């Protein structure tokens, strides 16, 4: 079992919806670079006593988040992202439905890399007249989630 890095979780009593021994089911928002990602994952706290702190050791191989903001584009609907801890300080961020992924040295790093990659792919594919099967499917997915270019 991998142990993710400590994640800042805004803790309040109403966030805890179930307690089973040392495991707590808790919906939470994760903040990276000023942005908030809402997780719908079930997470397992390594030590329930750490609920009193702002940081918890999260015991889970996987977190599901969603991207609701890109640097250069509006978002039509949140892009679901799966984060997997694959090694010490090594995280995989993947849009499974579109087969787009990147790795990073932290959850935030992996997410930032993924967002940058998503924009690269979206910009490239929407400018092409003919795409192969996989890129067509990816563009269809991205167009359903990404809107107009943000005015600078």
């Amino acid at each position, binding site marked *: 079992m991998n142990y993710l890095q400590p994640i800042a979780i805004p803790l309040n009593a109403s966030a805890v919806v179930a307690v089973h021994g040392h495991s707590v089911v808790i919906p939470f928002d994760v903040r990276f670079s000023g942005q908030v990602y809402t997780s719908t994952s079930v997470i397992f706290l390594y030590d329930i006593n750490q609920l009193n702190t702002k940081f918890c050791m999260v015991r889970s191989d996987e977190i599901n988040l969603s991207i609701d903001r890109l640097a250069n584009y509006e978002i039509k609907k949140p892009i679901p992202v799966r984060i997997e801890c*694959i090694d010490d300080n090594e995280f*995989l961020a993947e849009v499974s439905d579109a087969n787009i*992924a990147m790795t990073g040295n932290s959850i935030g790093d992996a997410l*930032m890399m993924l967002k*940058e*990659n998503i924009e690269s792919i979206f910009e490239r594919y929407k400018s092409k007249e003919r795409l192969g*099967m*996989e890129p067509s499917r990816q563009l269809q997915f991205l167009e359903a989630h990404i809107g107009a270019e943000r005015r600078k």
Partner: protein
Amino acid sequence: MGQKGGSKIGSREALVIARKLDASFVEKARHTTAFIVFKGIEFAQFGIRRGSNVGHPYIPKQLHISETEAMAMASCTTDGETYFKKMKAKGHIPDDI
């Protein structure tokens, strides 16, 4: 030398694979995206992180091959032509292209 993340595909191997497939590169602030184009048609893509000791475990899946096959390309035992033939055989590239 193995890379982090349990993947043997580091930045160097990722670049070798991309060049072997004659990829078109788009540079961004933090990474490079390699777009694989076959006879003028976009076919696949993968991101390459900058840095020497980072894993790229997602590349095989994005290229529709196994990690062993990806490493064979990185170590020059498989060429781009063989890869594209495989992709045609698997149906990832239409026969009329």
